[in-house]
């Protein structure tokens, strides 16, 4: 048994790729050796910016000899089969072994030297390595087939025990030599074996353990902050990133001018973190301090004074840029900025962002006026969660600055120094105050009106920050900056908070806004996005969801659940559909809406879809009928129902509801709710109140996972199978009414018809009679419970059927030779099936 060391030394590997590379190396090594019948006792991998390494312990020096047996043709098989087998195996017939009338080829494979296996494995691993991006380099790259690596590969150390495993790939020959720290060590280091690798490199200022570098950064950064009387804002993403940028990490504290603290703290943290990879600190009061921690890669002669000074200067330059944007942006009212949104395309088929804002503003108002989002929602009392959350959310470690300072096309988002400055208007301020005072009133009507006004106001401003200099520079700050600018120009807190938070929630873990104005704007924004992209058929496919529609739908689901919004999806979609009427061109009652319905510009609608076009100059609607023939109708005389139908073509409410159902399944799967149960409730149809739907699914799950529920499900499946077979044999014989002697129908009349009249209890077996009685009792109970959304009650009513149905199956043979008896029994089963089905479609339930 011996140990093996592999080091693949290269130019600097991107920090973000190193951890994954460690995993990939371990996996490839394991798999490649396993194919040769080798396994190590343990495998450990290492990554630094300049090397990817692996130590495997407990490898045998040679693989064991194996005898491989391949089954061939039977004795007496056609000669062609034998010829083919001999060709395949390269043997002659006398070399085959015959056993039980079958020929076998037996090949003895000698054991191989592990060193030989490794010599082949190393180039194979290198060639197969799945870097997210790789490159060619050097003289060999005259061919596009030359070796690819994440950055130029410089050297290979391969030692099995104390011996070099000889291999070569694209001119790079393996050996025992490596390099230490780029600046702290010069000249090659000779590694003796796997046992001295880690320490020899440590002596050369390289910490090969990724986790050790992480620990030094984590603890060192904390200590540096504490030494200055501050608290480090911990950030594991930054720890990992800095560990990927250093072989010898040295955290150090630096300062910046406190005057920069006027700039919103999110901006400072983003600049420090994303652009410079610095940690930030809090002071004793928990406020952002004018300090940062950077991580150097050297132990400098001067203890890092020059490094800290240099980093301070860089951050100051960045912050002064940010301060410039902040101050410039404050000079322009958000209303003025919002006008510029007409220049920004939302989507080529859907007009500008200004068009979207217009729709969202109307929709947000409507959501309040309809009472879907109300002042009385439980949320209203509670203040918005602290900014901290929105803060963390923008600081995604994957974000990088989009522009390159040294090359490339000019950044279109940079605002020139002289960007003009209209100051905020007094009018806005007074408007905000007026709304506030309205909200304070007790009259609910007034507060709905005020809320609707605030929702519309916030929606009109919510995208305005997209054209500010700051968001141009830091797109991650969209929303957050709008909130700051809104507050600065005197908008009410409710409006400013709504602008800040309207992108939320951005994922399953994100907090869900509860303030009613925020809910209205956020919901309206997401609904509009979904409805519009569905209208133009830009739907997510597979892993591609370029317009983040799944996230939008998930956000809406989170709102519904978290804020218990009672929300008719179909009605809302219908409302959006009605928005698609051009104001003044068509009256809303032409499509059956109420007179107050706000409107979309129908000329936009017209170009959304190939199936339907509006010629507004000619005042014509044009569409293709089922045969594909072009039809036209005058807009003055078109039937409202027809127009409504045509507009329906655009919005596809059914697809949207299905889309929501799918998102709900994905979301609830994580919460442990079974997707088949969601299907079981969904497939009943007519349920588009997702809060209610979920309550129903949960009640179903609670019941179906009990032993009793499982029995009922089994009984249902048995009944359904029998009925299905019977329906295959003779149609029309199976109708629940035939077994319904005592059944009271929903209309309240006794449902005794046809031959079933003949069946009194006296004629029935005891089990049949009991089942009929149980059904008579359970059906109205379940229906009554459902009508008041008491799903547990409905389940309980079904539960009473379990014993009688079990007894029925136990004692009664359904397929009686007497056709009347058979029909009656089938009828009972059909009643049972239908009673269960009014609660959920049990045929969709698995198990």
């Amino acid at each position: 048994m011996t140990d093996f060391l592999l080091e693949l030394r290269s130019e600097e590997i991107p920090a973000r790729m190193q951890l994954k590379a460690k995993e990939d190396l371990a996996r490839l090594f394991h798999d490649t050796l396993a194919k040769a019948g080798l396994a190590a006792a343990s495998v450990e991998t290492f990554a630094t910016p300049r090397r990817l390494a692996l130590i495997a312990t407990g490898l045998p020096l040679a693989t064991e000899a194996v005898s491989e047996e391949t089954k061939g043709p039977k004795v007496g098989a056609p000669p062609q089969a034998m010829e083919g087998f001999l060709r395949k195996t390269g043997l002659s017939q006398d070399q085959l072994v015959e056993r039980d009338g079958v020929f076998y080829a037996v090949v003895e494979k000698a054991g191989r030297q592990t060193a030989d296996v490794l010599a082949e494995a190393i180039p194979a691993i290198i060639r197969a390595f799945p870097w997210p991006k790789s490159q060619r380099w050097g003289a060999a790259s005259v061919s596009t087939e030359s070796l690819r690596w994440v950055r130029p590969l410089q050297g290979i150390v391969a030692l099995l025990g104390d011996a070099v495993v000889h291999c070569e790939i694209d001119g790079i020959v393996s050996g025992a030599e490596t390099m230490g720290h780029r600046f702290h060590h010069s000249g090659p280091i000779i590694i003796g074996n796997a046992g001295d690798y880690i320490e020899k490199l440590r002596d050369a200022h390289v910490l090969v353990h990724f986790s050790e570098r992480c620990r030094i950064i984590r603890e060192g950064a904390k200590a540096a902050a504490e030494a200055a009387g501050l608290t480090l804002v911990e950030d594991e993403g930054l720890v990992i990133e800095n560990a990927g940028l250093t072989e010898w990490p040295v955290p150090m504290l630096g300062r910046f001018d406190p005057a920069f603290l006027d700039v919103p703290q999110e901006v400072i943290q983003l600049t420090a973190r994303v652009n410079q990879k610095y940690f930030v600190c809090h002071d004793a009061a928990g406020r952002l301090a004018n300090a940062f921690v950077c991580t150097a890669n050297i132990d400098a002669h001067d203890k890092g004074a020059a490094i800290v000074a240099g980093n301070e200067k860089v951050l100051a330059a960045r912050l002064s840029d940010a301060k410039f944007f902040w101050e410039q942006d404050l000079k322009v009212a958000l209303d003025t900025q919002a006008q510029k949104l007409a220049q920004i395309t939302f989507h080529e088929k859907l007009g500008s962002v200004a068009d979207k804002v217009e729709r969202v503003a109307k929709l947000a108002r409507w959501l309040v006026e309809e009472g879907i989002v109300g002042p009385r929602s439980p949320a209203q009392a509670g203040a918005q969660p602290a900014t901290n959350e929105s803060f963390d959310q923008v600081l995604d470690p994957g974000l990088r600055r989009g522009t390159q300072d040294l090359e490339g096309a000019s950044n279109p988002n940079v605002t020139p120094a002289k960007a003009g400055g209209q100051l905020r208007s007094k009018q806005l301020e007074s408007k905000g105050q007026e709304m506030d005072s309205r909200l304070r009133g007790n009259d609910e009507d007034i507060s709905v009106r005020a809320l609707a006004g605030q929702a519309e106001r916030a929606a009109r401003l919510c995208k305005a920050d997209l054209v500010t200099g700051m968001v141009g520079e830091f797109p991650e700050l969209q929303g957050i900056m709008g909130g700051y600018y809104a507050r600065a120009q005197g908008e009410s807190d409710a409006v400013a908070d709504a602008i800040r938070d309207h992108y939320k929630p951005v994922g399953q873990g994100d907090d869900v806004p509860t303030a009613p104005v925020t809910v209205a704007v956020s919901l309206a924004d997401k609904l509009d996005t979904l409805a519009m992209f569905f209208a133009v058929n830009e739907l997510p496919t597979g892993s591609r969801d370029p317009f983040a529609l799944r996230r939008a739908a998930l956000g809406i689901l989170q709102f519904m659940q978290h804020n218990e919004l009672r929300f008719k999806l179909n009605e809302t979609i219908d409302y959006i559909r009605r928005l698609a009427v051009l104001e003044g061109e068509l009256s809303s009652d032409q499509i059956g809406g109420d007179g107050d319905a706000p409107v979309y510009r129908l000329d936009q609608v017209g170009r959304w879809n190939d199936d339907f076009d509006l010629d507004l100059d000619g005042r014509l609607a044009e569409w293709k009928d089922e045969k594909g023939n072009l039809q036209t109708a005058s807009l003055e005389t078109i039937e409202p129902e027809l127009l409504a139908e045509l507009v329906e073509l655009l919005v596809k409410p059914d697809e949207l509801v299905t889309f929501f159902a799918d998102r709900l399944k994905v979301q609830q799967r994580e919460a442990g709710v079974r997707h088949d149960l969601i299907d079981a409730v969904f497939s009943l149809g007519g349920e588009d109140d997702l809060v209610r739907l979920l309550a129903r699914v949960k009640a179903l799950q609670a019941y179906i996972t009990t032993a009793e529920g499982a029995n009922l499900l089994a009984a249902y499946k048995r009944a359904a199978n029998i009925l299905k077979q019977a329906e295959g044999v003779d149609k029309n014989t199976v109708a629940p009414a035939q077994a319904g002697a005592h059944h009271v129908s929903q209309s309240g009349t006794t449902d005794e018809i046809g031959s079933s009249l003949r069946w009194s209890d006296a004629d029935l077996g005891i089990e049949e009679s009991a089942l009929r009685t149980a059904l008579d009792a359970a059906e109205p109970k379940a229906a009554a419970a459902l009508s008041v959304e008491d799903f547990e009650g409905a389940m309980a009513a079904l539960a009473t059927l379990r014993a009688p149905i079990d007894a029925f199956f136990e004692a009664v043979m359904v397929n009686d030779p007497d056709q009347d008896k058979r029909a009656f029994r089938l009828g009972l089963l059909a009643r049972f099936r239908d009673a269960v089905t009014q609660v959920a479609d049990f045929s969709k339930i698995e198990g």
Partner: protein
Amino acid sequence: MSDVAPLSFQDLILTLHAYWGKQGCAILQPYDMEMGAGTFHTATTLRALGPDPWNAAFVQPSRRPTDGRYGENPNRLGAYYQYQVILKPSPPNLQELYLGSLKAIGIDPLLHDIRFVEDDWESPTLGAWGLGWEIWCDGMEVTQFTYFQQMGGFDCKPVSGELTYGLERLAMYIQNKDSIFDLVYNNATADRPAVTYGDVFRENERQMSTYHFEVADTDMLFDAFKKATAECESCLQHGLPIPAYEQAIKASHIFNILQARGVISVQERASYMGRVRDLAKGSCQAWMEKNRWAV
């Protein structure tokens, strides 16, 4: 950089010239046309194509109309200087050569924190991309280091190594100045005082910013864009890749001024960039064909 006086702006350039000249680079002069970056110089774009070795270094004035700040921002300029090195094929010790150049201009890597931070380069207007890093010195990006993989849409065979130093940034670093305009430009003598970068260029920044943001005649520029485009296509038809490429550079710069004037909408922007890319790619293709290089 403590004992001796730091390099003046011009000595920084001269030192780099001497260093890279010693490494066998041809020291070229700037391309005499307005362009956004040193990569646009034919010594980079066109020479990155084909199999022939090529080693050159030069300063390239780089114009970025939208980055103009009327000479008021200490860190931003509408026109500045890049120092460009291209080595083809990329030598195995390119990183060491680069670090040697930093030592030559007075940066001690045991006093300053030099880092190679992932930065993949892409120029949509040139149809080019490569992998590499931005080089940090104490957290400041001072150089872009790229292994070209494609140029004008063609695979680089072999790959070139490209270094682009931001001269003003490096000089600010070496001279420890907070504003570009305070950089010492030359070396004073007893009777001839030194001048600053601001003395030399601040007025240019003011006037060019005013021109680019407020004055430039957009009708004339739209027209010039069209004409440059047409001229490029005509040159391509005549099998003249170099003059064609010059027209592509011209169109690119005109587009940048139009951007600064704010007359190109977001929707139009992509299509203008697409036009320029087509011209640049067409020129590269014609260059390949002229040299009879397989694509």
